[in-house]
C-alpha cells in the first residue's frame, strides 16, 4: 500500500512541475532549462521557512512560492526581451549558477551534504508521524487544487493572451498588449508552481541535496512535458503519470538495477524522437511544439 501511495505522491509532485513547464512551453512558447532551479529554490526556501523561521504550513508554503516567484524576476526581467535561442541560453546559465550556489555555498545550503531532518508541518491535522497516507492525501489536494487553478488561469483572458503570444507574438503586441510584461508574469507563475512542488518534495522526503535540482532534472521535466503533450492540462497529467510509472514497469519486468536507469534514458530518448517525428504535439497535447 505504502508503495502505491508513494507513487501517487511522486505523480502529484510531477504534475505540479510539468504544469509549470507547460505554462511556458505550451501556452507561451518559451523554452526554459531552469525549471529545476525554481524547484530547488522552492525546496530550500521551504527548509528555511520551517527550520529557521519556524513557520507553519501555509505561511511556509506562501513564503516558498512568493520567494521563488521573486527569484524568477532575476532572470526574466533582463532576458525575456531576448528572443528564442538567447532566452534558452540564459535559462541554462541561470540553472548552472543556481546549482553551483546550492552545491558550494555550504553555510547556506550545507552544500553536497544536503539538509536532513526537515520537519513535516501539520496540515489541518492530516499529516501524522509516519506520513505516507497523510502525504498522499495532501499532495493530491495540492495537485488537484493546482490543476483547478491552472485551468482557471489558462481559460481566463490572461491565458488567451499567453496563447496569442505563443502563436503570433507580434500580433499580440499590435493588439495593444505588452508582451514582455505577460511573459514575465507567466514565467513567475510557472516558477510558483515549481516552488509548490519543491515544498512538497522537501517535506515529504525530509532530506534535500543539490542533486535533485540539476540541469538533468530540468531536461527531464521538459521531456515529460513534451511526451505528455503541451497546450492543455490533460497532457501534463499524462506526462507525469507516464514518467513516474515507467520506471516501475521496468522494475516489474526484471531489468537489472544496474542497467535500469540507462534503459529508462533510452526509452525517453527514443520516445522523444518518435514523437517529434510522428506526433509533435505529444501523446495528448494540443499544441505542436515547433522550435
Amino acid at each position, binding site marked *: 500500500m505504502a508503495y502505491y501511495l508513494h507513487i501517487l505522491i511522486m505523480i502529484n509532485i510531477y504534475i505540479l512541475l510539468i504544469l509549470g513547464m507547460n505554462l511556458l512551453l505550451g501556452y507561451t512558447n518559451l523554452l526554459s532549462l531552469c525549471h529545476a532551479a525554481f524547484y530547488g529554490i522552492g525546496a530550500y526556501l521551504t527548509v528555511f521557512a520551517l527550520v529557521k523561521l519556524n513557520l507553519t504550513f501555509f505561511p511556509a508554503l506562501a513564503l516558498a512560492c512568493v520567494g521563488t516567484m521573486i527569484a524568477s524576476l532575476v532572470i526574466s526581467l533582463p532576458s525575456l526581451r531576448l528572443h528564442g535561442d538567447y532566452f534558452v541560453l540564459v535559462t541554462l546559465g541561470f540553472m548552472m549558477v543556481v546549482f553551483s550556489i546550492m552545491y558550494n555555498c555550504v553555510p547556506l545550503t550545507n552544500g553536497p551534504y544536503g539538509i536532513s531532518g526537515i520537519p513535516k508541518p501539520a496540515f489541518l491535522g492530516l499529516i501524522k508521524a509516519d506520513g505516507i497516507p497523510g502525504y498522499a492525501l495532501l499532495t493530491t489536494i495540492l495537485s488537484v487544487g493546482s490543476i483547478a*487553478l491552472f*485551468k*482557471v*488561469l489558462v*481559460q*481566463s*483572458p*490572461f491565458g*488567451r*493572451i499567453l*496563447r*496569442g503570444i*505563443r*502563436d*503570433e507574438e*507580434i*500580433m*499580440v*503586441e*499590435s*493588439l*495593444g*498588449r*505588452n*508582451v514582455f510584461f505577460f511573459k514575465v*508574469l507567466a514565467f513567475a*507563475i510557472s516558477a510558483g508552481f515549481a516552488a509548490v512542488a519543491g515544498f512538497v518534495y522537501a517535506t515529504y522526503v525530509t532530506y534535500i541535496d543539490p542533486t535533485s535540482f540539476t540541469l538533468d532534472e530540468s531536461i527531464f521535466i521538459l521531456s515529460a512535458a513534451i511526451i505528455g503533450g503541451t*497546450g*492543455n492540462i*490533460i497532457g501534463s497529467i499524462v506526462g507525469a503519470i507516464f514518467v513516474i510509472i515507467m520506471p516501475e514497469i521496468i522494475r516489474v519486468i526484471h531489468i537489472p538495477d544496474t542497467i535500469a536507469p540507462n534503459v529508462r534514458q533510452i526509452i525517453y530518448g527514443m520516445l522523444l524522437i518518435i514523437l517529434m517525428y*510522428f*506526433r509533435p504535439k505529444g*501523446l*495528448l497535447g*494540443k*499544441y*505542436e511544439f515547433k522550435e
Partner: protein
Amino acid sequence: MNGTQTILEIDGISKRFHGRGNQESFLVLEDVDIEVKRGKITALIGANGAGKTTLFNVISGFSRPDSGSIMFYDERVNTHNLVSMSPHQIAGLGIGRLFQNLSVFKNMSLIENVLIGSGEKDGEFPFASLLKKSVGVAEQHKVRMAEDIIGKVLGETCTETGLDPGEHQKERWSQKFRFLQPLDRFVSRYERYGDIFDTPLSKIIKNDVFFRDASDFSFGQQRLISLACLFMGDHALLLLDEPTAGVNPQIVEKILTVIRQMVDESGISVFMIEHNMDAVLKIADHCYFMDDGTVTHFGSPADVLGNPKVRREYLGI
C-alpha cells in the same frame, strides 16, 4: 495642422536600412509625407519593394525612422507623436493593424481569435476572474459581441466552404499511429467544452465552427478572421497591409464590403496598402502612389491611377 479632418499625419519620414557585410545601405523611405483623413479610406499603392510595409512598420512602432514625425490625432484632438512610442502603446491609442504575412493565431479557435481583439484589458491579470466577478460578466459580453461580429464578417463564407477538419493533422496521422486517433477526439471534446466561459455560446455549441482552430480555415477566411479580430477592438485607425492579396474573388468582395462597413458604421479611418486596382477604385477615397521609397503622386484614386506616369511605372501600360 487641423486635427479634426486629419487622423494621421506622416511628415518627412526617412528610413535607411543598413546592409550587412559588404551590402550597401539604402534608403527605403525618403522624406515621405502622407495625410490620412478621418473617416475615410486612404489607399497606398506602389510596386513590390517600394517600402510600403516598411512605412506601416514605422507607423505601428515596429521600426524606428531616422527622421521625420508621425502625428496621430485622437478623438479628443490630443496629439501623439508615434515615433517615440512602442508598438503596444501605439496600438493602445486605437491604431489596429492587419499584417501582410500574418492573419490568425493558428492554434486558437475562431471565437478566441476574435475575442483576443477586444480592447477591454480589465481582467487580463492572472486570476482576475477569481478575484472579480465582473470579469466573468465582461467576458460573456465579449463572447456575445464576438458571435455577432463573426456572423457579420464570416457568416456565409463558413458554411459555403465546408471546413475540412484538421487537414494538417490528418496527413501525418493517416498512415502511422492511427490507433491513437480516438485520443485526439477525446482531447478535443474535453477541450471544446471547457475552453470558454459559461455563456450563451454553450447553447449553440453544436455550431462547432466557433471552436475550430483558425488554421483549419482557408486563407481568405483567415484574412476575414483577422478583420473580425480588428472589428472587435475599439479602433480609430486601421492599417491594412494588402488585405485582399492571394484571396479568391468571392472573398475579396466580402473583405471590401467588411472594410466599407467598418468605415460607414463605426467611423473608423482606414489606411490600406492594396494591389488590386479595382478594389482601390471601388472603395478608396484617397490614393497615394509610392515609388522607391518616395511618394510621387497623390489625389483621388481615379486621378492617380489615370496618371500616365503611374500607369507606365506601376501598371506597365
